[in-house]
């Protein structure tokens, strides 16, 4: 079961309403995406904490064994 880019963005948007979110489809198979999330809430957090918050927003969609999304190349940033 694959996912659409807008579904990923919507999920992340739920947790990060003001974030700048860019989803890139890496393979066209609905399973390999890159996501860049730029949000004020990341300020002062290290990469692991930032990315953990984004993975939490994806609510288990990322889980390898039955997850819909196999690969999400994640980049998180704080607004300049």
């Amino acid at each position, binding site marked *: 079961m694959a996912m659409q880019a807008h579904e990923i963005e919507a999920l992340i948007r739920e947790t990060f309403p003001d974030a700048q979110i860019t989803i890139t489809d890496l393979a066209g198979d609905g399973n390999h995406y890159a996501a860049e999330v730029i949000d004020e809430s990341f300020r002062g957090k290290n*990469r*692991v904490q930032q*990315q*953990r918050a984004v*993975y939490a927003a*994806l609510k*288990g969609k*990322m*889980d*390898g*064994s039955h*997850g819909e999304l196999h*690969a*999400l*190349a*994640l*980049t998180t940033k704080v607004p300049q």
Partner: protein
Amino acid sequence: MSDATTQIDETVKANDVVLYMKGTKEMPQCGFSSRVAGVLNYMGVEYADINVLADENIRQGIKDYSDWPTIPQLYVKGEFVGGCDIITEMTLSGELDTLFDDNGVVYDKEAAHKIREANG
């Protein structure tokens, strides 16, 4: 604690560097695991490679242990460092070298430098 959690806890504390991955360091079975194992191999880092495909309990247990949903996962001195994206970024920025220096982990500095040059 479940036996998987206990087992993981013991492993990450017993080894300076541990990589939970799909496959082994000689035979990675996933592109992301292969990239991180490749970096560690190239930098001559000594590490324990745990093949999560060999044990479903560990495969799920490690995600609960670190509250991180993906594989591979790198641990240095018992601390979760990151997955493929973070390790790639840290390698290119030099933060991985610093982390290893700070934790007394031996690695080939010249090799690390070459990786950055190649991806310059």
